[in-house]
């Protein structure tokens, strides 16, 4: 029971409490803010286990980017929470079922490693000594050296998904004015101005 345990219980308690607040807060923006607090505490838990790279990536990617977009959407939408709440009992059985399945899976995974500790040693990529190689470097080894093809394929899938999303939502509107900076800069008096000699007493 050292300082580590104290911090573990602190992070864990705040994470669970704010996870509860995510689903019970009345205001959807407050829910998202509590969700951010959950991510933050999860990053703290990662730090405690010595996975500093994962902790920082969690902060950068989930809080710094994903949750910002989330907050954006929630702020823009005018969500009536009372209306959403009315269907709670209707969806409760499905939610409870999914929760039970996830809990069962977690118990199987954790129970497996508790019952047969030797299984942890049988994995293909054993965890090296953190004093010798930092876990950032180890993650790099796994992702970019041993499983580089899988990593590339995953990137390709994401690229295809991104292009798909752009193609589906891109709407090229006609008849609107667009700024073309290169054309503006390349304009010269000859192309822009027409000098007309107007005879007095006559129009153009």
């Amino acid at each position: 029971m050292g300082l580590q345990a104290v911090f573990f219980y602190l992070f864990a308690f705040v994470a669970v409490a704010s996870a509860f607040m995510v689903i019970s807060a009345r205001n959807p923006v407050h829910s998202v803010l509590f969700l951010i607090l959950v991510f933050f505490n999860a990053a703290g838990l990662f730090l405690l286990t010595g996975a500093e790279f994962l902790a920082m990536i969690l902060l950068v990617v989930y809080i710094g980017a994903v949750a910002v977009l989330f907050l954006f959407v929630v702020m823009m939408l005018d969500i009536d929470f009372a209306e959403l709440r009315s269907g709670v009992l209707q969806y409760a059985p499905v939610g409870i079922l999914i929760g039970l399945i996830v809990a069962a899976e977690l118990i199987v995974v954790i129970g497996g490693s508790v019952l047969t500790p030797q299984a942890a040693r049988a994995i293909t990529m054993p965890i090296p000594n953190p004093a010798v190689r930092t876990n950032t470097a180890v993650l790099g080894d796994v992702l970019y050296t041993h499983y580089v093809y899988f990593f590339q394929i995953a990137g390709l899938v994401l690229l295809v998904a991104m292009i798909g999303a752009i193609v589906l939502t891109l709407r090229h509107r006609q008849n609107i004015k667009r700024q073309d900076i290169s054309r503006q800069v390349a304009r010269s008096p000859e192309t822009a101005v027409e000098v007309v000699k107007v005879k007095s007493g006559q129009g153009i």
Partner: protein
Amino acid sequence: MEDTFFSIYAWPALVMIAQSLLVLVCLLVFIAYILYADRKVWAAVQLRRGPNVVGPWGLFQSFADLLKFVFKEPIIPSGANKGVFLLAPLVSVTLALATWAVIPFNETWVIANINVGILYVFAISSLEVYGIIMAGWASNSKYPFLGALRSAAQMVSYEVSIGFVIVTVLLCVGSLNLSDMVFAQREGLGTMMGLPNSFLDWHWLPLFPMFIIFFISGLAETNRPPFDLPEAESELVAGYMVEYSSAPYMMLMLGEYAAILLICSLTTILFLGGWLPPVDIWILNWVPGIVWFIIKVVLIFFGYSMVKAFVPRYRYDQLMRLGWKVFLPISLIMVIITAFVLKLMGWA
């Protein structure tokens, strides 16, 4: 006496608290004078005098402002979301100051010398957008909300190019530790040409395009002019700060300036050799490293205030174009080029 609670936990904790307080106090005083310098530079460019009344040459202006802010009445709009409204300045100032824990001011002068220092800085500064979004939303008013939306989109966009710039530096250094980044700049392009250790070894020379991109993205990331659209007074009055007054407003300002100084010192560490002297001769080595560090930070900040003084504000779509269509491709290509060069020359 060994292994008592005192020697394991209490003493290191006390030392850490003392170090943090020291850095905090120095930082706050430094920010006060940076603010003053910013106003003076801006005034000088416009042929004005700037603050010159409080104290000799107006040197105590920032402290007078501080007192004014503290003793004014904080006004909370009745339609505002009170909790979030007051939390927003706290979040922005806490995050902006928290980053300083990993900044190495001198060879051993760093509070927390962690392995993933640069990621920590990047992570915390990507959280700073929350202070702004929360402030804008909680004010429950049009201009603050528009300002917050602009700011969020702007900061998220420019973080991408900042991230890639940092990646190129990381490729050259091979470590995420901020002190290692400075150590890596002891030798470089200059020593390869047979010159003694000098400012030619620092990363700004081999990674010059990245240095420029980092400087400009830093302006956008901290909402400095010419990218201060979140608080563009001609369009949005004061953006996300419109509804704030007295101490909460001061905290938002403080957070903003702490973030600006942070970007300046990050530029110093990544590209200008941190605490290293410009030329390796004894008289310059004799000057403490912290002095070099501060000189470089102030030089970068001078650049920032000069840009503020003479560059007109960008239009929002041009800002987005610059971030996504210019900086992102250039920095991506530079990452690839740097990786290839390092691999082919056998430097990595």
